[in-house]
């Protein structure tokens, strides 16, 4: 069992498929992760399980990996999904991290509109192409330059860039940028099918990415940061906000307009 604690989770799941179900049972969403290099031991820490649930989870995994040499579970705890509703705590973020979570709200609004945008897509008209390009501008300027820049240039700088969980986030950002390039290419070629495919892929990617950040990464990063670092980060985010001026407001209006246009 010990040697598997230092192995990447994808490798562990590949070798012992029932581990995937155990992780799902505890709401640990490593199974669909595109990278999966986080170590088994880190995953347990990152997900901030209670000591009882951690012990119970590890006992179950141990039963699969090393039958006969299980870690004893003193009192078997039900997985999170089976816990009473009252035990589910609201996630409390530090002020700078809360800002990032709030920025996700607008991004989630835009990606929720993507199916409607695709349904009404008309690449033959200049207006139709402009609408897609406005969406691209929102992604590039708001989601990427404004929001992801705060993550990549400020928040992630407090951590080791080689941490697997950080690498996964960088990889998601890069994959997102590749989809955006493909969307622009599709618009230029008036290739409706390609634009739709990449818009949907971007929607799927960002939906999972934001969920991972809001529920796993940010709370974990928050727990690692000192009070001093939180203060510094808050000041740096404020500087970024000042630099961008009214631009975020403009993008909020853009998303609201699309939402109004496509509301039934």
């Amino acid at each position: 069992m010990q040697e598997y604690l230092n192995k990447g989770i994808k490798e562990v799941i590949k070798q012992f498929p029932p581990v995937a179900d155990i992780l799902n049972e505890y709401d640990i969403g490593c199974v669909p992760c595109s990278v999966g290099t986080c170590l088994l031991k880190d995953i347990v820490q990152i997900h901030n399980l209670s000591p009882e649930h951690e012990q119970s989870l590890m006992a179950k995994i141990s039963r699969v990996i090393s039958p006969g040499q299980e870690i004893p579970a003193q009192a078997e705890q039900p997985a999170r999904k089976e816990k009473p509703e009252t035990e589910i705590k609201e996630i409390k973020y530090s002020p700078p991290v809360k800002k990032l979570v709030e920025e996700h709200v607008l991004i989630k609004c835009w990606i929720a509109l993507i199916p409607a945008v695709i349904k009404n897509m008309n690449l033959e008209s200049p207006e139709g192409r402009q609408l897609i390009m406005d969406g691209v501008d929102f992604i590039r300027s708001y989601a990427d330059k404004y929001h992801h820049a705060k993550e990549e240039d400020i928040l992630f700088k407090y951590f080791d860039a080689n941490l697997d969980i950080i690498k996964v986030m960088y990889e998601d950002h890069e994959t997102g940028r590749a989809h955006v390039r493909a969307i622009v290419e599709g618009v230029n070629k008036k290739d409706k099918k390609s634009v739709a495919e990449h818009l949907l892929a971007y929607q799927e990617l960002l939906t999972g990415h934001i969920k991972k950040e809001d529920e796993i990464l940010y709370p974990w990063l928050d727990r690692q940061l000192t009070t001093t670092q939180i203060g510094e980060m808050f000041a740096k985010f404020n500087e970024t906000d000042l630099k961008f001026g009214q631009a975020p407001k403009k993008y909020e209006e853009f998303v609201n307009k699309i939402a109004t246009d496509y509301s039934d």
Partner: protein
Amino acid sequence: MAEFEGCPGSRMADFRGKDEGGGDAPAGKVASQLRQWPIQMHLISPMAPYYQGADVLLSADCVAYAFGGFHPEFLSAKGGSTSGGKGKAIGIACPKLDEGQDVYVEKIKSWIEDAKINTLTVLIMQVPCCMGLLQLAKQAAESAKRKVPIKYIVVGVQGEILKEEWV
């Protein structure tokens, strides 16, 4: 036996017999981590150099007596999870008994705006009246043009940390 037991802030509690040996606490002297004087909110100047850009503690008077590891945990640069960073400057007050608390609001505002503090951590006891200190801090922060992260930590009467949360 009266049902009404009076103000929780002044209700008698007897902790004798509770872990009198000191439990796992280290023996011997603990070095002071205080980096300034004065500390009482009526006496401090918010523009004193040790407040400039600092992580500041606004502590209710009783906290230092209730929380055994006050210096290493809250004041020290090498403090635990609740501290961390470069060490803290401090101001102390009692929101229940002190007079002239409008001055406190102005001084906290000046910490935020003029001394450009990095963060403010409000340390209060679990008794309800202590919440008044957090309210003073919030009032000052709302009136300040500059914004800083504010955290509050609630300490139990037997010295345990009951809550730690960003506002």
